[in-house]
């Protein structure tokens, strides 16, 4: 994020797009609601009528995969009506002429047709967004998980640059990162092209620096992304796969494809539980959970915060880093660390943005990177002196909207969106073990627009076979009015669910992200009864749990009895 989490409350205008904030980042969602109550303006653009849409000043129910067209349409209005920040554009950007020429054809009418929204709503959104220098864009995977995900992000950046919405409190372009330490994993160089702090592996100077620091010759060739590793295993190029704290069997696109690859490679796994991926593992190392270890996480606003050990580790489980250290030594690379802090102190030396941080300094409120020296206060807001890139000049990129091929195949007439729900987290290995969460969302479902449902003769609890070019899954139906006709929605948490359907081959050309948010599917009603049976099973399981296993069963029974008595009027 260019700005802070709580900075959203300082904004005058909040533009939420491709983020179901109240479900996926609930506390951030609370801030949006607080801001709205305080009289701030809210624009929401999302194919799903998310809870925030209900309180939005302007809600644009765009067709899945049309974010670029929406941004271009808004820019068209901004330029037509002279709402841009001419001074900021002149001083801090390049490429304005190309951008202006390109968005000319994206009149609100043209963009509205692509996005499936009223042209006047695009005009209103553009005016509202451009009305302030405190306009805060918050987006998440609804923007990035497209085959043109990079374009989507760039087009939002165009909006912010042209209105001068960078470098101050309450504005910026703010990706809400989904995992506790996805920011940190990227910062630490868990990327095929980057050493820590985004220093490129193919840059000879950087290579020399790391060779000196680590005392070995390093490889200058770009490595494989997760999505490219799977095919590389199938092509016999990769023989050994080491998976630390992930569950690719469920989280990666095109599950069948992934299963073959995991089966084929020698698979080393490191985790707190056995999961779907373990079925293919050759070695499994048990590790400590976050509550049992010391360390640091970097949150979505680049704030590095302490993780503290508070619980006793289970069995023989070890720190992840201890296992890695042991393997490094066995591979002939000698190293030794006594505690996580030792590693932090080493990584500071090669990670300029973390150089000024120490565990002692992270006590309390943590520090935002970049924090280059030990007397630096950290950097909550980026780009304060103009964009960091190229001496304060941000790049405006003229980007045409392209349609996902998933929407063009008439044999798969519905568009399926996948997303996270409030109660579950990713592949559910953690959340499903809280019984109350399990009972709240025990199995997969698909949401179907009510008109489509009528046409397909579907009602709540019916059973639907959803098929894409890759595979199929059978799920329970929920009929909703939050989707446009032709669009369906499914959570991505469940094995044998959404990722049976997604495509692992057509990826974003720049960052290889899969198009999880636009999947072409066809559907077919399958024999009923099954979902009813499943519902009953879960209900019985829940009742049995509260009767026999739940530690608060005495209270529960007491309450049930009181309720019964109340029913009898005693």
């Amino acid at each position, binding site marked *: 994020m260019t700005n802070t989490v709580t900075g959203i409350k300082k904004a005058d205008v909040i533009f939420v797009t491709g983020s179901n904030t109240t479900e996926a980042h609930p506390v951030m969602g609370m801030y949006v609601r607080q801001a709205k109550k305080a009289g701030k303006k809210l624009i929401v653009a999302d194919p799903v009528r998310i809870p925030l849409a209900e309180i939005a000043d302007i809600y644009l129910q765009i067709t899945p995969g049309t974010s670029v067209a929406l941004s271009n349409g808004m820019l068209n209005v901004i330029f037509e009506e002279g709402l841009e920040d001419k001074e900021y554009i002149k001083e801090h950007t390049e490429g304005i002429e190309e951008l202006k020429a390109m968005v000319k054809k994206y009149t609100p009418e043209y963009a509205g047709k692509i996005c499936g929204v009223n042209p006047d709503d695009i005009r209103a959104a553009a005016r509202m967004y451009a009305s302030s220098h405190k306009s805060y864009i918050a987006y998440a995977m609804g923007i990035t998980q497209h085959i043109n995900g990079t374009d989507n992000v760039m087009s939002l950046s165009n909006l912010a640059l042209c209105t001068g919405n960078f470098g101050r409190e309450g504005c910026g372009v703010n990706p809400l990162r989904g995992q506790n330490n996805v920011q940190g994993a990227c910062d630490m160089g868990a990327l095929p092209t980057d050493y820590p702090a985004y220093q490129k592996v193919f840059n000879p100077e950087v290579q020399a620096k790391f060779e000196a620091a680590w005392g070995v010759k390093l490889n200058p060739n770009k490595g494989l992304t997760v999505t490219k590793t799977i095919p590389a295993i199938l092509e016999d*190029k990769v023989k050994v796969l080491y998976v630390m704290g992930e569950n690719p069997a469920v989280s990666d696109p095109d599950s069948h494809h992934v299963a073959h690859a995991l089966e084929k490679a020698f698979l080393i796994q490191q985790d707190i539980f056995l999961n779907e991926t373990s079925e293919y593992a050759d070695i499994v190392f048990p590790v400590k959970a976050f509550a049992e270890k010391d360390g640091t996480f970097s949150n979505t606003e680049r704030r590095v915060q302490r993780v503290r050990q508070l619980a006793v580790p289970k069995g023989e489980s070890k720190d992840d880093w201890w296992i890695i250290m042991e393997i490094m030594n066995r591979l002939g690379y000698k190293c030794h660390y006594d505690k996580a802090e030792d590693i932090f102190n080493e990584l500071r030396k090669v990670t300029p943005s973390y150089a000024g941080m120490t565990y002692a300094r992270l006590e309390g409120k943590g520090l935002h990177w970049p924090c280059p020296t030990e007397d630096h206060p950290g950097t909550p807001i980026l780009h304060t002196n103009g964009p960091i890139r190229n001496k304060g000049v941000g790049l405006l990129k003229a980007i045409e909207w392209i349609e996902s091929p998933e929407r063009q195949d008439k044999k798969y007439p519905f568009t399926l969106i996948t997303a996270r729900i409030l109660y579950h987290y990713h592949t559910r290995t*953690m959340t499903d073990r809280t019984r109350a969460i399990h009972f709240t969302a025990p199995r997969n479902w698909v949401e179907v627009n009510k008109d489509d449902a009528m046409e397909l003769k579907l009602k709540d609890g019916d059973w639907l076979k959803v098929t894409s070019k890759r595979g199929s899954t059978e799920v329970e139906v929920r009929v909703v009015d939050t989707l446009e006709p032709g669009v369906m929605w499914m959570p991505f948490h469940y094995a044998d669910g959404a990722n049976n359907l997604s495509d692992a081959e057509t990826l974003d050309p720049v960052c290889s992200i899969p198009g999880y948010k636009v999947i072409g599917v066809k559907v077919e009603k399958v024999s009923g009864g099954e979902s009813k049976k499943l519902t009953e099973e879960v209900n019985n399981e829940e009742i049995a749990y509260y009767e026999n296993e739940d530690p608060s069963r005495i209270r529960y029974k007491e309450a049930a009895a009181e309720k019964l008595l109340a029913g009898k009027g005693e």
Partner: protein
Amino acid sequence: MKLKFNGREYEVEKGVRVFKAAKDLGIDIPNFTIDENCHFNAAFDEPEDYEYSLKDMSVVEINGKLVRSYEVEVEDGMDIWTDSPKCKERRKEILGKVVSFHPLDCVNCVKLGECKLQKYCEMYGVKEGTDKVSYIKRPKDMSNRFYFQEFDKCIRCGRCVKVCKDKVGVEALEMVQDGKMRYVVPNLDAKLWKERIGKDSPSGKEKVMAIIDGKVSMADSTRCVSCGNCVSVCPVGAIMPKAQNNFREWETKKVVTTCTYCGVGCQIEYLVRDGKIVDAKPANGPSNEALLCVKGKFGYDFINHKDRLKHPMIRKNGKLVESTWEEALDLAASKIKEARDNFGPDSVAGFSSARTINEDNYLFQKMLRAAVGTNNVDHCARL
């Protein structure tokens, strides 16, 4: 600026309310309505003529006059007494009223030791109610999966309603009044009330009666997101987590750490007993401002789950079997070595993790780059 608390001189900042200034100095002024982090004060939502007002709990004596400490700002040279006989008298009066309708079954209450009402009653020697109050008794509401409500213990401080309305912003609870008493009830849509009891806008009493009759419950609230912030702010045992880990607050150690779920980076204060987490509360972190969501508040059961891996395992004859650390580490290293030496370093690949700490991620990529010699390292950022 300089002022006096209880006869001692202190230096304080300008523009702060007396309550906050005292709190920052470590002087605890009794109150029920202000949350621990001073993010909100539910007293402002009390009706002015309300019989059981808790507003005056936080009175202090300044120049012989009682004033509410959260209403006045500090002034230079102020002479503030937080526990003078007059203050005590006023507080005893309020406590006496509250205790008249709060069940004094403290020996059977899980909140024992943490309860503010109990604390103040003990402090001021209040043993029984002073007032004969008639109010509607209600059964417990067990309908939410994550927490239960035992509103007979409710002292009407309004914190839960306030946090739900102003901080979470969903307004799943509301405070209704009947006669002298107020009641917390689920805030339901007019349509639902109509459906259940045939009235669009029932009176406070009708709402409470509908709950007693089992016609509505917390489970009917489509607004509730089970974030449990109402549980966290309740000063007594009226809203409690369902997970009963049979602990008492004084048996626990409290440790603040960063939440392990989404990227917001909320700070959680875990209550730990004998090395096990027994409860979670929001800490006042910079990105969560003492709020949590359902996963942060209630989703910690996985840590002590019986399925946790406890030994290294190796696949033998198609099955994963327990092994020693030596055996597993040696095998892993030899397989990596074998691939590296026979097929080149790029025949090894690793998926690091966005779930684990920076230190693990750093060492993981260093292992692949420095010890194996490949850049084949990535993680689930794109997924």
